[in-house]
């Protein structure tokens, strides 16, 4: 018997994984959580039908969401992770001895339990003594703090579901208040390729660039995310993501990575032209392509 899991990347496009077996499936009250054991990607964490991570390529996402801001900010002492229930982002942060406190605010306790049980290589830092784990709505948590954090990482699910409130202006703006004057905010910024993701990416940029004096977008190649191409946002009132990069300081830390390096750091902010147009003008690739198709077919 063949067992396949398919994830829809758009209404008319899906990607499929041959599944060895299903390890976990339950609704947490917030979302449907599944862990699948696959031939190609190892264990795969799926929430509400969407892949959150795979054992094989999760390092790319977690390294890029963590090391980019860490290589820019000269001295992160207190970091806040919103979401990130699997623990991958916390794992990367825990590699920095300079960090004294990490607060992780994940609304869904089951996400953490499932990762602890089925994804040991991802969740291995949950017992780090610097970590405080709080199960609460991220928006509710962040609005109570002013001038507290050096770094906030928003490691959220998509805007349709429990992560909804983490894509709002009130969230980003309250994050800015919660950051210290020279703090950095990094977020999962959706993908530029398929219409739904791209519209969200443009909306996020519209909101964040209205709030932060410096709002930049960078990219990574993540094979299991839609189109294999994903975006991250970098926001700050002080630091420029490329000009304020201090490669020597970061390299001295001796952190071993598999995707991130300081040469790639600058390159990640060099966006393809269609992505720039998406962010700056809200132009969706789909529109251009479909317009051409309509003209081709005459009266459609």
């Amino acid at each position, binding site marked *: 018997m063949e067992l396949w899991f398919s994830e829809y990347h758009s209404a008319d496009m899906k990607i499929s994984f041959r599944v060895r077996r299903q390890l976990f499936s339950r609704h947490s009250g917030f979302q449907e959580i599944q862990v699948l054991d696959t031939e190609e990607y190892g264990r795969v964490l799926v929430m509400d039908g969407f892949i959150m991570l795979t054992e094989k390529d999760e390092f790319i996402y977690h390294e890029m969401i963590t090391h980019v801001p860490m290589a820019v900010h000269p001295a992160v002492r207190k970091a806040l992770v919103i979401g990130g229930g699997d623990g991958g982002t916390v794992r990367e942060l825990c590699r920095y001895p300079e960090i004294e406190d990490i607060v992780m605010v994940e609304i869904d306790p089951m996400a953490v339990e499932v990762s602890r049980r089925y994804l040991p290589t991802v969740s291995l830092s949950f017992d780090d003594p610097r970590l405080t784990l709080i199960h609460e*709505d991220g*928006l*509710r948590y962040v*609005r109570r703090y002013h001038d507290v954090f050096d770094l906030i990482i928003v490691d959220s699910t998509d805007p349709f579901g429990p992560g909804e409130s983490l894509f*709002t202006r*009130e969230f980003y*703006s*309250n994050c800015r208040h919660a950051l210290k004057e020279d703090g950095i905010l990094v977020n999962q910024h959706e993908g530029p390729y398929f219409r739904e993701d791209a519209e969200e990416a443009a909306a996020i940029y519209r909101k964040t660039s209205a709030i932060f004096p410096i709002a930049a977008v960078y990219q990574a190649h993540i094979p299991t995310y839609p189109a294999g191409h994903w975006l991250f946002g970098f926001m700050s009132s002080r630091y420029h993501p490329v000009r304020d990069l201090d490669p020597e300081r970061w390299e001295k830390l001796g952190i071993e990575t598999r995707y991130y390096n300081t040469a790639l750091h600058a390159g990640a902010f060099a966006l393809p032209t269609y992505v720039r147009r998406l962010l700056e003008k809200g132009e969706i690739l789909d529109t251009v392509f479909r317009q051409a198709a309509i003209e081709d077919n005459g009266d459609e």
Partner: protein
Amino acid sequence: MSKPIRGRYALDQKQAPLYEALVEFRKRRMVSFDVPGHKQGRGNEELTAFLGKQCLSVDVNAMKMLDSLIHPSGVIADAQQLAADAFGADSCFFLVNGTTSAVQAMILSSCSPGDKIIMPRNVHRSAINALILSRAVPVYVNPSVNQKLGIPLGMAVEDVASAIGAHPDAKAILVNNPTYYGVCADLKTLVELGHASGMRVLVDEAHGTHFYFSEELPLSGMEAGADMSAVSLHKTGGSLTQSSLLLLGQGVRNERGYIGQIINLTQTTSASYLLLASLDITRRNLALRGRSIYRRVIDYADYARNEINAIGGFDAFGAEKCDGRAFFAFDTCKLPVHTRAMGLSGVEVYDLLRDDYDIQIEFGDLHNFLAILSVGDRPVGIERLIAALADIRFTHGCEPASDLVSEYITPCVAMTPAEAFYSSSESLPFETSLGRIAAESVMCYPPGIPILAPGECVTQEALEYIRYAREMGSRMTGTEDPAVEHLQVVIE
């Protein structure tokens, strides 16, 4: 006040006869040679794609198996009986022209031309318009005003008593309960007063549907013994916009036929089955689950009040403002917030929430805004509102404005609304209309309570208020002039 026990019914509230008939109709796959012309959606593909096949397939005309709203004798009559039972009424009417038509039916069926009706001045425009249609003569009772909040309250018992004393020939008393802000009057005493003087007591309960389903909420019109009540099931109950109920108490049992005739004067003869079915399904939902639904809503509202008050600068007020008089009780599902200490008007906060945060609230006035919580709310929305307010305080908050202009203007009545409305009139710029008699209404919308009603003198106070409200960002409406720069005044 003894708390009523709600949720005990004589009929089996699990039924939904109109809904069930529509489901049955759908199964029959009838061939239609009647209206509407889209014939279950087939004739309008784009509309069907937008609203859905399910929806269009039951957008049908009155027929035997589906009864008729004009003269119900089948499933609509049954559904109305179930609704009457659920609301503790003697009987009820389903309405599809909004609660406006319920308010008009109450007034038109109680007052003939020239009859007096006692009412607060801060009523919705639908009540003022009903005075034009009925040619009734209003006896306005000034609502008390909470000076600190700048909002009008309910009618105080002693004020109504003195109005009754001065106008013992009045036919009815109209009570607006709760007000938009959630303020309730001492309804039971008002009903007793009215009945003792042989007057009908009519309740505009447009914002009080939920009172009927939770013991934690104030007394409802039917429980207080009112003769009629207009209930906007769509406002806080969850039915489709424009669907509404007129509830009748035992006192008008013999008048039911006449009231039906009054309703049919203005109600459409092609009532939408989508609206009617939504009344039936919503009534069933509230009868079966209303208590737990509104428990949750009250929790959300109380949580939001506490959190908003913890931000500082905002006063999310509630039951603590009750004074046993004109602020007799409070509807805890409402979330009114006083913004003056923030140095922002309610309208400014209302605009900021909509434009910058994609949060639409019910209305903003000079010093307050109002969020309405109802069956459809969920925690993420509440958290967004609180967080947006926290951000507004941080980014926009400033020193409190010193001048508090009251939300209530004492009217100077020169003739009845009907006399003024039907008289010859001319159009004048606002600034030159001082001292003249208004022939039309002027109001901020929302909330839609007239600043000037037809028949009232244009006073300095009213003009100043209009100018001030405009400066604060309120949207004016009600005049013939779409730009609201000219006012129709009576030629005397």
